[in-house]
């Protein structure tokens, strides 16, 4: 499943995209994200999935533009810690 967490408003489109088929629930993204955006737990949208999966916390979902901004400087943007930590390459950002 491709899970798009985030929103679209007048200022743009802000989504963190998680490929839950690739995600193995290891939780390295949770450790890598200093702002508490990532979370690992039960798959809310697939009640029959047994394994844990990465997701964006409900608390953060509507403010990722601001939370993630701290890892996204205007210039010399380093690789995003959440994406870098993800070995199966399951995380991407829309902006």
């Amino acid at each position, binding site marked *: 499943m*491709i899970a798009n967490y985030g929103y*679209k408003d007048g200022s743009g489109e802000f*989504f963190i995209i998680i490929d839950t088929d690739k995600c193995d629930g290891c939780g390295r993204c949770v450790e890598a994200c200093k702002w508490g955006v990532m979370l690992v737990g039960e798959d*809310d*949208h697939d009640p029959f999935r047994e394994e844990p999966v990465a997701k964006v916390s409900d608390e953060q979902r509507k403010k990722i533009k601001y939370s993630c901004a701290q890892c996204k400087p205007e210039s010399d943007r380093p690789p995003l810690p959440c994406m870098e930590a993800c070995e199966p390459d399951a995380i991407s950002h829309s902006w």
Partner: protein
Amino acid sequence: MEEKKEFWRWKEYNWHDENKDWKEASIVTAGVDVGSVSSQAVIMADGELYAFSNMRTGSSSPDSAQKAIDWAMENTSLTLDNIRFTVGTGYGRVNVPFAKKAITEIACHARGGNYMYGPTIRTILDMGGQDCKAIHCDERGKVTNFLMNDKCAAGTGRGMEVFADLLSIPIEQIGEMSLSVEKEPEPVSSTCVVFAKSEAMGLLRSGWDKNTVLAAYCSAMAHRIVTLLERIGVEEDFAITGGIAKNVGVVKRLEKEIGIKILEPKYDTQIAGALGAALFAKTLVEKGKG
């Protein structure tokens, strides 16, 4: 003083299949969808739709859930004890006291849409009271891609309610009236409900008639949804669930803009979430989890 009419009010009702007897079913399950604006309870006998209710959500989620299920059971001789398993869904899903499990509305709309429109359904757009969700699913109704927008009221039922009140037009007539215009106006430029409302006031003052203002708003709403759908794309078959699916003014304009046919609903589009929840309840019992 003249009584103020509630133009935003839509039809609340309950229904049960009089040709069926739930006592003959080996398993009765229920799904309760407590949404931000409306609540529905669906009761299924052996995985077939048996009864449902569709009403407004009150200030308390547990009370709304209870009222919805009581109303669905009305005149059926069913009691909560006869229902083997109930799944709660929607915005108030964790506050359904008699539900044994809560499942997100995204999963439930996909499953419910699969029942309502059959296994060929691939894209479901749920236009709810306060949010909007675009969902792709496979032939079994399992979610394969989704996106939700609940940060903005543009393109939601609540936005339409605001317009019904502003123009003093019953909400259920808005769609038809907006289609009666001879020439399609430019959509209102603002997608924000608050700004769209002020823009509409300005248009009325400048001499536009109500139908044209409604057309401009329905068109803006359809356009807003199209930009949201672009993120995940639309695969056929495509259907809309939720309250806005009943507004032909938005549906027809959306259909025109994306150039893809929107399936005609066979059931009340507002019960999709609760229907999916009731189907999950049955599967959970069969898997030995109930």
